[in-house]
């Protein structure tokens, strides 16, 4: 244990790693704060979830409608007071409002107007869910996807099949009303993309840099500091590599955890999710681009978040182990770093080079780079080439096996390797 601790110490007492982690943290905070201009508007949906419950039922929607009517009456009361006019809707009021009339209303009244306008938007969205979802045709979606990637032959068949399965899941979801929960409206705010693509994406990239550097530092330390002849001839000897691997994985854990705690801590203190933890990730309101986000599983937002964190963590551990293997083979941190970068980019581009008619294109897609580059599509079935139900589990599982074999192999190799 003491050896592992001392190996870890090599990484966390390295000033450059400390400086980088602080820099990245500051950047993430800056990123979140600079995108938080709409955070006040997000409170409305929390209020809705608080008053009507996070699940939309017919009764609660009815109740909501009645409350909206009350608010509408209040709106006209206010406008009558100031301008002796009445309006048929908030939009009419806002559209006919002249610039010089803005000052007629107090700040409090303006707050009420925006509140009311947003509530109405949410109500309209909720009302339109069924008709929008009935229009979803996954068969056609599969076709356009196949056309887009130029698939043919068995590849096209596989994707078509998967979409058929997904279509069933979609029908089931419509039955059990899992998609009818309150969530931030996707189109205007794009909160899902911001959290899971921008914030997670940056975080993954930063963690990757730090982990590769830390692992390369720990593993190649003896060679770069010319202490190899001493350390590898001690009693612990070449078995030290096992401690080095353990230390690397420990550091990877620490770095990922640290970044997650600080970044997500900032994120959730800025953005209010207080009543939406139990909302579903497949909520119909979570609809940003052409397709809504629909997960293969019935996941609440909290479960999705935790699973995503776990998945990222597993990937980071695997990346650390891959760096370890490269380090053993090249014995030089400089080459380790750039070879890892090259490996990452190659794996990412891999399925672009595969023939579009065979299932090779999918097999090449089961790699960690592609997985971590799309954190907003974890566990999702809607869209994308790699929309398979067990994509995440298979990728991590397969790579866990590959990496374990490689680790064992590199231990064996290191036992016989020249050490100077």
């Amino acid at each position: 244990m003491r050896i592992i601790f001392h190996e870890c110490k090599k990484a966390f007492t390295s000033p450059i790693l400390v400086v980088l982690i602080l820099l990245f943290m500051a950047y993430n905070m800056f990123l979140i704060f600079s995108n938080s201009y709409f955070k006040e508007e997000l409170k409305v949906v929390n209020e809705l979830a608080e008053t009507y419950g996070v699940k939309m039922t017919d009764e609660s929607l009815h109740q909501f409608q009645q409350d909206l009517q009350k608010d509408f009456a209040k709106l006209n009361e206010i406008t009558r007071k100031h301008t002796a006019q009445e309006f048929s809707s908030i939009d009419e009021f806002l559209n006919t409002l002249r610039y010089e009339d803005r000052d007629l209303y107090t700040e409090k009244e303006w707050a009420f107007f925006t509140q009311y306008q947003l509530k109405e938007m949410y109500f309209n969205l909720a009302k339109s869910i069924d008709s929008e979802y009935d229009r979803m045709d996954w068969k056609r979606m599969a076709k356009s996807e196949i056309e887009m990637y130029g698939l043919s032959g068995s590849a096209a068949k596989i994707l078509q099949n998967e979409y058929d399965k997904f279509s069933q899941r979609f029908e089931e979801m419509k039955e059990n009303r899992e998609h009818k929960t309150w969530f931030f409206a996707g189109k205007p705010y794009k909160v899902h993309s911001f959290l899971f693509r921008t914030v997670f994406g940056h975080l993954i990239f930063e963690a990757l840099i730090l982990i590769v550097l830390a692992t390369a530092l720990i593993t190649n330390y003896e060679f770069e500091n010319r202490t190899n002849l001493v350390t590898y001839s001690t009693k612990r000897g070449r078995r030290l590599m096992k401690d080095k691997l353990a230390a690397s994985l420990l550091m990877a854990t620490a770095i990922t955890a640290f970044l997650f705690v600080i970044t997500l801590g900032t994120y959730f203190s800025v953005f209010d999710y207080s009543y939406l933890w139990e909302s579903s990730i497949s909520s119909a309101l979570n609809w940003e681009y052409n397709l809504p986000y629909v997960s293969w599983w019935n996941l609440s937002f909290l479960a999705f978040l935790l699973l995503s964190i776990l998945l990222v963590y597993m990937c980071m551990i695997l990346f650390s182990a891959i760096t370890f293997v490269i380090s053993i083979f090249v014995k030089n941190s400089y080459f380790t770093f750039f070879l890892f970068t090259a490996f990452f980019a190659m794996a990412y581009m891999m399925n672009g080079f595969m023939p579009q008619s065979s299932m090779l294109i999918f097999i090449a897609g089961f790699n960690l780079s592609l997985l971590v580059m799309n954190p907003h599509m974890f566990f999702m079935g809607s869209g994308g080439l790699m929309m398979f139900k067990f994509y995440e589990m298979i990728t991590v599982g397969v790579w866990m096996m590959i990496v374990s074999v490689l680790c064992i192999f590199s231990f064996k190799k290191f036992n016989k390797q020249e050490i100077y």
Partner: protein
Amino acid sequence: MQILLHEIKKIFSWKILLLLLFVNGILSFLLIEFDIKYFPNGRPALDSYRIGVEMIEKYGTHMDEDDFADFKKTYEVQLEEANHYLQTRKEFVDAGMGTYEDFRNYDRNNKEQDVLYDKVMFKEPVDMLWELEERSRLIENYKSKEISLEHYMKDANAKQKLRFNELIEAGHYPVYPEVAFANFKSFIYHVAITIIFSVVLVLLPIFIQDRSRRLLDLQYTAKKGRNLYKTKVAAGLISTFIVITTLLITYFGFYSLNHTSMFFSVPIHMFGGDFYWYDPTFFQYIVLTVVAIYILGFVFALLAMSFSSIMSNTIALIGIQIPFVIIMIKYGVFYMMRHIISIWVPKWVVPTSYSVMLVVSVVFIVLLWKREKKRDIVL
């Protein structure tokens, strides 16, 4: 001289060369390939490119009213042809798309029309129909050139307004299709990123390698002594030059596949998309960006060498470069390459940034040489 050559050889060890090749292969697939393989990117970009070539052949580097009248005439002739083409095809007449005007204002919800439209535009694209669309866009563009410039002027500050007035006085309006130029701007932006990355990759190990092998004790006690530091810097700069030149030749070799040389003599204010502080021709603009790439390359080479002589280990050396390279790639190159003379970046910003970067990196390496002269190497 002998030592200099040996130092250059040390920089280009076969391992580094292999890595350089590998990394450039990946980066060119990730960044550069797109601008070469997909140029012109689909339609109407292809028609835009073709019409642009035709315009330059006919009207030269500027377009006056006579040229415009001729351009309009070409459009009308082609319009007649299109009308004739549609008239002679029965299914179009039956579907109520017998004239080009009806064809263009087709009803998307009318199934019959939609299928026919889809057929001649996408399934078996008829060049003439696409070209007509592009020509009419260019004609509209020409007619509204004053208005659109005024529109841009509204948000301009005093200096930008001055420049816009200059453009108006000289009659410099963006009336040519911009595909070729926009493609070059995107291409050179990605080349700049690739070259910065490659230079840093090659020069990082230059000093740290000797230090970690404890070679300094030997080198600094030889006759050449500490002057070796200067020789190594020189070797680094020569290698930088070699790397940048080789990569530029390679990538411009790829670029020549785009066949845009006929646009080279056209002044860049003729292309739409952006406005510029100066009026170079396309070719002069290429030279400008190439010079800029050399400066960026040398700045990053000098920085890499400086860091290489002060950082204690390879990890720290790579680590300290990361923020600089990321900031440069994410923000720096965007302003300093893509918008190098764009009117939307204040005139002084880009030249100042280049000078400051160059001065800082040179001063840095000079200071390090002063330090090296007195440094206690036994420690």
